[in-house]
């Protein structure tokens, strides 16, 4: 009963959108001039990686990975391994954002601005 669109989405659509999100994140890191925006795009990129991992672990018609008395066979539960890995990835992204913001504060203090061209101009003066 999978309609044409769902079949396309399941096969390639979701992955395509995830990688699109990822590449926009990377594009944002490179294209944005403001360091704060770069940090936000970095977070978005990491969320895209997490979504990709989770979509790998999907099973059709399976419940959340908490054991229920009645159910024992493996097909009825979502793959728990990807969730465990992704908890790590989320916390890593928080850690990186924390360090990034600490750096940002010191850069703002030292160079007076967080725009890339101001920093490069003032950096050579130092």
């Amino acid at each position: 009963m999978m309609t044409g669109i769902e079949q396309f989405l399941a096969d390639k659509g979701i992955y395509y959108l995830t990688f699109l999100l990822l590449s926009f994140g990377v594009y944002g890191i490179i294209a944005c001039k403001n360091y704060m925006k770069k940090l936000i795009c970095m977070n978005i990129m990491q969320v895209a990686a997490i979504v990709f991992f989770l979509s790998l672990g999907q099973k059709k018609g399976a419940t959340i990975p908490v054991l229920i008395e009645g159910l024992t066979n493996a097909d009825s539960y979502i793959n728990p391994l990807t969730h465990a890995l992704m908890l790590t990835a989320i916390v890593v992204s928080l850690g990186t954002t924390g360090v990034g913001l600490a750096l940002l504060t010191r850069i703002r203090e030292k160079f007076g601005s967080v725009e890339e061209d101001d920093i490069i101009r003032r950096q050579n003066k130092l």
Partner: protein
Amino acid sequence: MIQHYPALVVILPLCGAALSLALTKIHLHLGRNVIFLSMALSFYMSIMQLRNVVINGPMEYRFGGYAIPYSIEFRIDTVNGLVVAMVALMGLITAFYCISGEIRSEKLKVGGAYAVVALFVAGMLGNASSADAFNMYVFLEITALAAYCLIALGGNRGMVAAFRYMLVGTIAGTFYLLGVGILYSATGTLNMQDMSIIIQQGGKDEAVLVALCLMIAGLGIKSALFPFHGWQPSAHTHEERGSAALIAGVMVKIPVYMLFRFVYCVFGTNFKYMQQILIVLGIFVGIGMMYGSIRAIGQTNMKKLLAYSSITQTSYFMLGIVIGSPVALAGSLLHFIGDAFIKGGLFYCAGAIKYKFGTVNIDNFGRIYKKMPVTSALIVAGALSMIGIPPTVGFFSKWYIAMGAIQTGKYIFVILLIISSLLNAIYFFKIIEKIFMSKDKGLEDVRPVKKGELPWSMLVPMSVCIVVIFLLGFLNVKIINMVLPLLKGVGM
């Protein structure tokens, strides 16, 4: 107790770092001494572990006691036994080196500095000994975070370099994570041993190809391979004086070791697209060797010069992977271990000169060999080894790489090897000329040192580096015999 060594080698520095901040509140140097103790113990254990692996075969350690594919596993064989021992030793002597850079004023800063170094070393130790794809990602992140902090501590220009490195490093980490994800979707496990068995069964070429490309991109960025080296020179020039040796000498090379582990142990060289990928990597490596040396010739800032020359050295290690014959792999591994001490040693010298005279510009190095004999001895030893003069380790690693290249008929790499070692000769003899011969600039000591050339905490790491450069030269046959049987099975 010995079968616990693989885990304890990584856990001890971790616990040392965790406790150091709390202990520093009790007494200024208690945290620091605990970290020294834990690093010394971990180095001792890595030596015992290496000895045990050489005697009775590879060791493996399953965390949590479950069967292989279901829990995380450390697999130590001669190759990464050597790498772990080297990282532990470099970590220990760098920690000693950081004593001179201590800021006595604030308790927090003292304990924190050593905690970051200990975490950095623990991350690299784990990276070298882990045999689980996702576990490597987390160790990569620990190393990266500690590296951002160490670069940022190197002064205000270090901040910008650290921030830029952080952005690029996170992109690299995400690429590696995607690669692991695709491998997981194709094979179902995260354990590399299990993964290679499933991949050898075949039928997964496309997924493995995409995963390999992503990993090469990710690990290439982390190890500043040629096309992705943008962040590296500025990072190495402005990083914190004490730990520059660790970052430039060791951290840049661990991702290349991981790439070796993936390309040769997980995918195996009979993988369909392997030859094309090795050709592409070969082009990167070739250009990288030339580019690094040429850019290094024109530099006047010693640290920037060493940063560019470490691009060449990383591509030497990649050269072994690209050539593919077991002898070349063994040679590039020997180069990896030797170069950590050479590059580390040279960064110690740059830091020492900056500590004593406050300058990093080569032009006013005039005739410092009278005041700093040990530093200039290490620079000469490093220079000889970079060029490849026999008693030092550089010659022997070049010998094995060249032999591997000729055996597989890839003569272009022998020519590249010769040209890049000559280019190295140019800028190293430029430094030697400045140190030994150019007129004395009469630099006066920025920081008064009681007696002798430098505080003992700097002299000890430097003399260890000199000894190891020559020691590895003499022991190279033992190391190669130790490593070769393992590579033979893997390589061809």
